[in-house]
C-alpha cells in the first residue's frame, strides 16, 4: 500500500541474485533483458508482512517458498494431452510438468487472427508495452515482480486490430510434481476493435503440494472487447498467489470472471484501470472456502479518466473452518468526473466457525461522479428455505439449491455449458 519503494534486498528462498544469474545465462538476449527489468524492481519491493494493512488477515509467511523448487524445463512438448473442454476453443495451450503444447484447432494463427508465442519470443514491437508495464497499477508488488523475473511458463497473446475470435483461447495448467513452484505469466493485448475470449484453467491433484505465483497483464485497446475467465481448481495442498492487472482504453470493455474453488491458501489481486473515456469493466468473482481453505482477494477498480464505468460483483461462501477475505477499492483520480462505479460483495456464511471478512473501500478524489458499494453477510434466507421445503424438498436439497442459486448469477457469466456444469459440480461437492 505504501507508495515509497525501499531498498530491501530481501529474497524469497530460492529466488535470489545467484539463482537469477544462473537463470538468465540460459535465456535469449531479449528475454534476459526483460527479466532483468523485473528483477531490479523485485529487489526493491518490500516483502509483505502481517503488519501491512492488506496482509493483516492473510499471513504471507504461509506462502511456502522454503523447501520448494522452481519448476524447470517447461519447453515445448511433442504431444499435447487432450481434454473435453478443448473443442469449445479456437486454440488451446496445454501446460503440464512435461512442457507446453500449442494446438491451433481452427487455424487462427495461419489466418493471422491471433498471435500466440512464448513470452521469451515476444515480437519486438510489443516489447515496449511489456517493459513499461502500464497495466501494472502497483509496480512495487513483490509477487508481480518476482513473477516477471523468474516466470517459468509465459505466453504472449495478441489479437490484431478488428479481428474477432469466434471461440477464444484456452490455457490449461495441469501439474503433478510435488514441491514445485510454478510461475505462469500471461500478456494479452487486444488491439483496437478486436473481440476475444481467454480462459485459464488450473488443476492439480489434491495431495500434491504445489505453489503457484502467477501474474497477468491484459491490455484492451480502443473499442476492443476482451473476456477473461480464470478457473482455479488447484488441489487443497497447494498455494496460489495471483496478481493480475488490466488496462482498458477508450471505448474498450473487459469482462473478467475469477473463480476460486481450489487450493488450501490463496491470495489474489485483481487490478483494473479504466484508463480512457468510455472504458468499461465488468469484474465478477466466485469463491467458496470450505474445510480449512483460506481465500483472500483484493480488487482495485481504478478510474484514472473521466466518463469511465466499472461494475464489480464478487460472491462467496464459507463453510466448515473456511475463511474468506474480500478487500475492494474503488479509486477515482482527481478530475475523474462522470464516473459510475459499483462494487458488491455478497457472502454466505454456512456455519458458525467459518468466517468471512469484507472490506469494501471507496477512495474518491473527484466530485461529479457516482460511486457506491455494498456488502452483505448472512446465511441462506430462512423464508426461501421454508418455501422450498413446503414444496416437498428436503432441507438438504433445499439448501443445496439455494447455494447454487446464489452462485448462478456468476456461473451464468461463463457462457459455456461445459465450464458452467463443471463449476456447478464443484460447488455442489463443496456443499457436501
Amino acid at each position: 500500500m505504501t507508495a515509497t519503494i525501499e531498498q530491501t534486498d530481501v529474497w524469497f528462498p530460492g529466488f535470489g541474485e545467484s539463482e537469477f544469474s544462473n537463470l538468465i545465462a540460459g535465456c535469449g538476449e531479449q528475454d534476459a533483458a526483460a527479466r532483468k527489468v523485473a528483477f531490479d524492481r523485485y529487489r526493491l519491493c518490500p516483502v509483505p508482512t502481517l503488519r501491512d494493512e492488506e496482509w493483516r488477515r492473510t499471513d504471507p509467511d504461509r506462502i511456502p517458498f522454503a523447501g520448494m523448487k522452481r519448476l524447470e524445463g517447461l519447453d515445448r512438448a511433442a504431444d499435447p494431452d487432450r481434454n473435453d473442454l478443448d473443442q469449445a476453443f479456437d486454440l488451446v495451450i496445454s501446460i503440464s510438468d512435461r512442457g507446453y503444447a500449442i494446438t491451433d484447432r481452427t487455424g487462427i494463427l495461419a489466418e493471422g487472427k491471433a498471435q500466440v508465442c512464448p513470452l521469451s519470443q515476444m515480437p519486438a514491437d510489443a516489447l515496449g508495452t511489456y517493459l513499461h508495464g502500464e497495466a501494472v497499477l502497483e509496480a512495487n508488488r513483490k509477487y508481480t515482480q518476482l513473477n516477471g523475473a523468474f516466470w517459468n511458463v509465459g505466453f504472449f497473446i495478441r489479437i490484431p486490430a478488428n479481428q474477432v475470435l469466434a471461440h477464444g483461447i484456452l490455457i490449461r495448467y495441469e501439474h503433478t510434481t510435488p514441491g514445485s513452484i510454478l510461475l505462469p505469466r500471461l500478456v494479452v493485448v487486444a488491439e483496437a476493435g478486436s473481440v476475444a475470449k481467454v480462459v485459464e484453467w488450473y488443476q492439480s491433484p489434491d495431495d500434491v503440494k504445489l505453489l503457484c505465483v502467477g501474474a497477468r497483464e491484459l491490455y484492451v485497446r480502443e473499442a476492443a472487447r476482451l473476456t477473461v475467465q480464470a478457473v482455479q481448481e488447484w488441489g487443497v495442498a497447494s498455494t496460489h498467489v495471483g496478481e493480475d492487472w488490466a488496462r482498458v482504453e477508450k471505448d474498450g470493455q473487459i469482462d473478467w470472471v475469477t473463480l476460486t474453488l481450489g487450493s488450501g491458501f490463496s491470495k489474489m489481486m485483481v487490478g483494473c484501470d479504466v484508463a480512457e473515456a468510455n472504458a468499461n469493466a465488468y469484474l465478477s468473482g466466485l469463491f467458496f472456502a470450505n474445510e480449512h481453505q483460506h481465500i483472500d482477494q483484493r480488487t482495485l477498480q481504478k478510474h484514472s479518466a473521466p466518463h469511465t464505468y466499472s461494475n464489480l460483483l464478487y460472491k462467496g461462501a464459507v463453510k466448515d473452518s473456511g475463511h474468506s477475505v474480500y478487500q475492494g477499492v474503488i479509486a477515482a483520480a482527481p478530475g475523474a468526473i462522470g464516473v459510475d462505479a459499483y462494487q458488491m460483495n455478497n457472502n454466505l456464511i454456512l456455519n458458525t466457525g467459518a468466517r468471512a471478512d469484507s472490506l469494501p473501500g471507496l477512495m474518491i478524489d473527484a466530485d461529479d461522479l457516482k460511486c457506491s458499494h455494498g456488502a452483505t453477510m448472512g446465511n441462506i434466507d430462512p423464508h426461501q428455505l421454508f418455501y422450498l421445503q413446503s414444496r416437498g424438498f428436503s432441507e438438504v436439497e433445499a439448501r443445496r439449491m439455494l447455494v447454487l442459486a446464489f452462485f448462478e448469477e456468476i456461473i451464468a457469466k461463463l457462457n459455456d455449458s461445459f465450464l458452467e456444469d463443471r463449476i456447478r459440480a464443484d460447488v455442489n461437492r463443496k456443499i457436501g
Partner: protein
Amino acid sequence: MPQLETDSKLIREEYRYGFSSDIPEESFPKGLNEEVIRAISAKKKEPEWMTDWRLKAFRRWQKMTEPTWPDVTYPPIDYQDISYFSAPTQQESPETQEELMKTFERLGVPLHERGRLAGVAVDAVFDSVSVITTQKEALAEKGIIFCSITEAIQEHPELVKKYLGTVVPPADNYFAALNSAVFTDGSFCYIPKGVRCPVELSTYFRINAIDTGQFERTLIVCEDDAYVSYIEGCTAPSRDRSQLHAAVVELIALEGAEIKYSTVQNWYAGDEEGRGGIYNFVTKRGHCRGARSKISWTQVEVGSSITWKYPSVILEGDHSIGEFYSVAFTDKKMQADTGTKMIHVGKHTRSTIVSKGISAGRSRNSYRGLVQINESADHARNHTQCDSMLIGATCTANTYPVVECANETAITEHEATTSKISEEQLFYITSRGIDEESAVSLVVNGFCKDVFKELPMEFSVEAIKLLELKLEHSVG
C-alpha cells in the same frame, strides 16, 4: 439543468466562537514528565491510587508510538511543547466568575436558572477545570451523581475505581494512554438503578488558553434499567497555532439501561490555508454490559482541523443495541477520519450505523468502520449506511469499512455511496421558486436528516444552522 457555476463556491458562515476570554489563568510550564503528572494530580487533590494510575499509564505511553494509519497528515506533534494544565487563577473571584458567565452566555450555554427551564443540567469545562456544574442538588435527590471527574475522584472514589478504565484501558491506544496520564477534567455521571434522568445532562468544553492541550475524561455509568441523555458541545478561539484535544469517553450500560450520547463538535477548524485549528484525537467507547442495554452515539462533526474519532460499542449483553449516527462536515483544509466500531459478542445483539460525510473545499473526509460479529453472537444483526456528498472538485471522500462475520445466524448489510450534490434535486427545488442558496441548504439538510432526527431538539436546530451553506459568487 443548472450547473453550480465553477467560479462560485459554497461557504459556511464565519466561525462565531473564535473569540477568547480575558481571564487571568495560570498554566503549567510546557513539558511532560512524571513531575508534571504528579503536579496535575496534586492540583486535583487526588488520592495516591489515582496518581499511581496516571503514572502507570504514562510509563506505558512512553513505550508506545503514535499511530500513522489514519488518513490524515499533520506535522509531528511535540509533546514537550504543550502545557498540560491551565486554569483561571482566582476562580472564586467575582470578576472571574462574571467573565466566565459572560463567556458561556456568549457561547449560548445556559448556566443560570434558565437552564432549569431548558431541561438541561450543565457541567462547564474551561481549559483544564470544570468551572460550574448546575442542578447538582436537584439531581442528587434522585440519587443521580453529576459532577466533574475531579470531584468524583474525591467524593466517590469507590465508583470511579470500579469503572474508570474498564472500557478504554489506559494503554488502549497512544492517545488514550496520554489522556490517562494527564487528563484534567470532564464529567462523571452515575444514574442509579431504575432511575430515568429527568433532564439532559450536558458538558460544554471550552479551550481558551494558548498552547495548552485539553485532555477531557468522561465516565457515564447507567445502572440496571436507568436512562440518561447526555449532550456535549465544544468550541475554541481562532488561533493560528494548532492545539491538541485528546479525550477519552467511557460509557457503561448495565442490564436494561440506556445511554444516549450526542455531540456537536465545533472546535475551531483552522483557516482557509489549514493554519491553526484543533487536533481532535478522541477515544469514545461504550460497553453494553447487561442484557437489553442500549448505547446510542449521535455526532455532528463540523469543526477541528483534524478529527480522529471512532465512537464504538461493545455489545456484550444479550439483546443489547448499539447505534451510531454521524454527520461529518469538512471544508477548507480540514481532515476527518471518523467512524465507528460495533463489536457483537452477545446473542441477538443489534447495531445500526448511519454515517453521512460532506466534504467541500480542499478537505479530506474518511469513514472508517468495523462491524465484528463474533462466533458467540447468534442472530446478531447489523445495518450500515454510509453516504458521502462531495461539493467541489478539490475535496476527497474515502470509505474504509471492515465487516467480519463468524456466525452463521448473523446478518450484516453494508451500503455506501459517494456522489456530487444532486443536480436534479437542485433543479427541482429552484424550479419551485427557491433560490439556489436555500436549495443547497435544503439538499444538505435532507441528506443529513436521518442523523439530525436523532438529536435532542435544541441540538438539532443548532446542527442545521451549522451546516447552512452560502453560495459565494466571485464577481468578474
